[in-house]
């Protein structure tokens, strides 16, 4: 019988469990620090560049000291319809996440607990669909959405994002639901709860970490995605990442502005990262790492 996998980072939270510092740990910390710097440096470059003027950008060599300017942010936020793009991105991100969670949750539950013909087929199809490259989807979706009148609409984009994110969400939640002991559900059923109540009151609270992880991943993709949005939006429905690509022109790249917009786009994922690192790691490792 497999014991449920303990989320590894849970062990880190218990107080009094840190070992006393030894000299050999210095090397350990040094390597960790180096790795952390490696991860953070490019992002830091993006932030610092967003505060530089064009003339400051055009200097060879390292220069750490410069007078920061808010000019890029001012131009990005107040010119060029930033508010429209922000609203579009928010609508798409939140809708796609909500719908994916609801549908994915239900589907995962159905796949785990219920036996029905077609279960294997749908299960395998879901797993395979997760790996479809977006470039493969772009061409037929462009054609089909245009003919169905869905092109250039937020609804069309949301529909596509939901479809693309469902496989991973289902797969993720499948692992979590599997770990909910059947006995709990059966006990609740005996107590007189209908199937919906069992789902709502017993299962959902127990898979909350999985839901959080799935929500974060789906929102991240819907918020950051660029290629499909590029193909499927026009000036009214454009999302933020597509707007960022507009600063890349044939004449050159407007680095200050594009880094400013990139920094703004990075804010929600950064917030999620710092608030919910544990859930993210759990989400990544669940299913792959079995006890």
């Amino acid at each position, binding site marked *: 019988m497999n014991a449920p996998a303990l989320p590894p980072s849970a062990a880190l939270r218990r107080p009094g469990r840190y070992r006393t510092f030894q000299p050999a740990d210095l090397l350990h910390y040094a390597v960790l620090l180096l790795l952390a710097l490696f991860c953070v440096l490019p992002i830091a470059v993006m932030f610092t560049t967003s505060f530089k*003027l*064009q*003339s400051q950008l*055009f200097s060879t060599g390292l220069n750490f000291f410069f007078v920061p300017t808010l000019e890029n942010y001012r131009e990005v936020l107040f010119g060029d319809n930033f508010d429209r793009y922000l609203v579009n991105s928010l609508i798409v991100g939140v809708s796609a996440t909500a719908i994916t969670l609801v549908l994915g949750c239900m589907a995962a539950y159905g796949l785990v607990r219920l036996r029905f013909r077609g279960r294997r087929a749908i299960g395998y199809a879901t797993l395979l669909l997760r790996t479809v490259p977006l470039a493969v989807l772009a061409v037929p979706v462009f054609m089909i959405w*245009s003919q169905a009148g869905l092109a250039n609409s937020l609804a069309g984009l949301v529909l596509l994002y939901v479809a693309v994110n469902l496989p991973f969400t289902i797969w993720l939640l499948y692992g979590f639901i599997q770990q909910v002991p059947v006995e709990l559900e059966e006990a609740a059923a005996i107590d007189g709860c209908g199937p919906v109540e069992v789902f709502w009151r017993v299962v959902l609270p127990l898979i909350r970490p999985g839901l959080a992880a799935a929500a974060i991943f789906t929102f991240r993709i819907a918020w950051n995605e660029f290629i499909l949005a*590029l193909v499927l939006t*026009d*000036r009214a429905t454009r999302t933020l990442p597509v707007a960022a*690509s*507009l*600063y*890349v*022109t*044939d*004449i*050159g*790249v407007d680095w200050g502005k594009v880094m400013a917009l990139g920094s703004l786009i990075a804010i929600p994922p950064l917030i999620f990262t710092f608030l919910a690192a544990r859930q993210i790691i759990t989400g990544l490792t669940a299913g792959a790492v079995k006890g």
Partner: protein
Amino acid sequence: MQRRDIVKAAGLSVFGAAFPIASSQAQDRYAKYRGQTIVISVPSHPHYDAMHKLLPAFTKETGIKVEVDKLQILRMKDKQLLEMAKPQGDYDMVSYVVMWKGEYAKKNLIRDLDTFLQNPALADPAFDLQDIVPIYRENIGLVGGPRGYLAGPGARLYGLPYGAETSVLAYRTDIFARHGLKPPATYAELQTLLPIIRAKEGIGALTSRGQAGHQCVHAWLLHLDPLGGKVFTDDWKPRFNDEAGVKALELLKEISDTGPTGIPGYGQGEMMTAFLQGQAAMYLDSTILFGQVNDPARSKVGGKVGYALHPKGVRQASQSGGLGLAIPRNARNADAGFLLMQWLTSRPQDIAVAKAGGIPGRNSTLSNPELLQQYPEYAVMREQLKYSDPDWRPIIPEWDEINIQALGIAISDVLIGKKHARAALDGVVPRVTDIMRRGGYLKG
């Protein structure tokens, strides 16, 4: 009525009558469209950034509001194709690259401008079509003439130039003075100068485009034409691998070797930046450079730049090309779109856009004394336009494919040292022939 009111009424009527007739006619022209909003499709391009600054004045004068859909050029094209193929499209005016004019006209996506220009209700009597630089008008706007894109019998006007360009030579007066050099008047002189400048000054001699795809082909074409070459013969057979073609490509390789580091990856932006940041002593490419040289945000070489004609090979020739404006066939507000087009390309607005950093498109603008003070290079440009070659580049729909899939790779291979010029050009002839055959230009 009180006496005061009579005086007021009399004063007003006198005042009203004193208004120039033309102005009240102008009000008539725009009156029908006051309050409408039109949508235009433009690229991310410095000339259109300058145009952007003029739009509030248009709205103030006419009451027509303008919504701008600014896109990267490549993306702009397929967006436009999509929009213009619908029964009713989103765009009332589009900006297009000269290369697309044939395709747009053939697919019946844009309108013949004669109907607008001859419509007394819309046409501006002070417009003066002849003042628009003829070579620009021909190159950017005419479709249906000889070879499909030149002036002559059968040509009809589908667009007006806006953001058109030719090529000039720009050079660092301080560097040349320092070493006692003269700006090259011929290609032979240019070729001699390249290693000299590199050795003596330590910076790149001539900046150039070099990126694979249409960028490096553009750079090669700049030299091909003056050196006597052409891409196709009169009956569309590839001739770019003849002596002139090879010579032009070998020269381009030499330019790349003596130029600033990284030319094989340079797009138009990087090429200009290299010159503007002092990493190259010379520049030989589009006149769009003019508006950038004295901009302190982008340029360190303001005040140190001189201009000369595109050097002569076997002939004096320079590029022609750039952007223009057209009206989609399925535009919802075609008339209002035309009014904007006409306004933007009119005499006063051409001057205004030049002042704002854009590219002039009229002879009168190029001779304007005030502008000549700010941009003395206009004198060189006026002279250069006499030699601008409308057949500098074949303007056929297949050109994109030839650029990106054939010539663009072959030329880039030479620049990165993978192949030699002759082998690269010879090697891509079958591919180009195949494309031309599929396009119906060649039989069999």
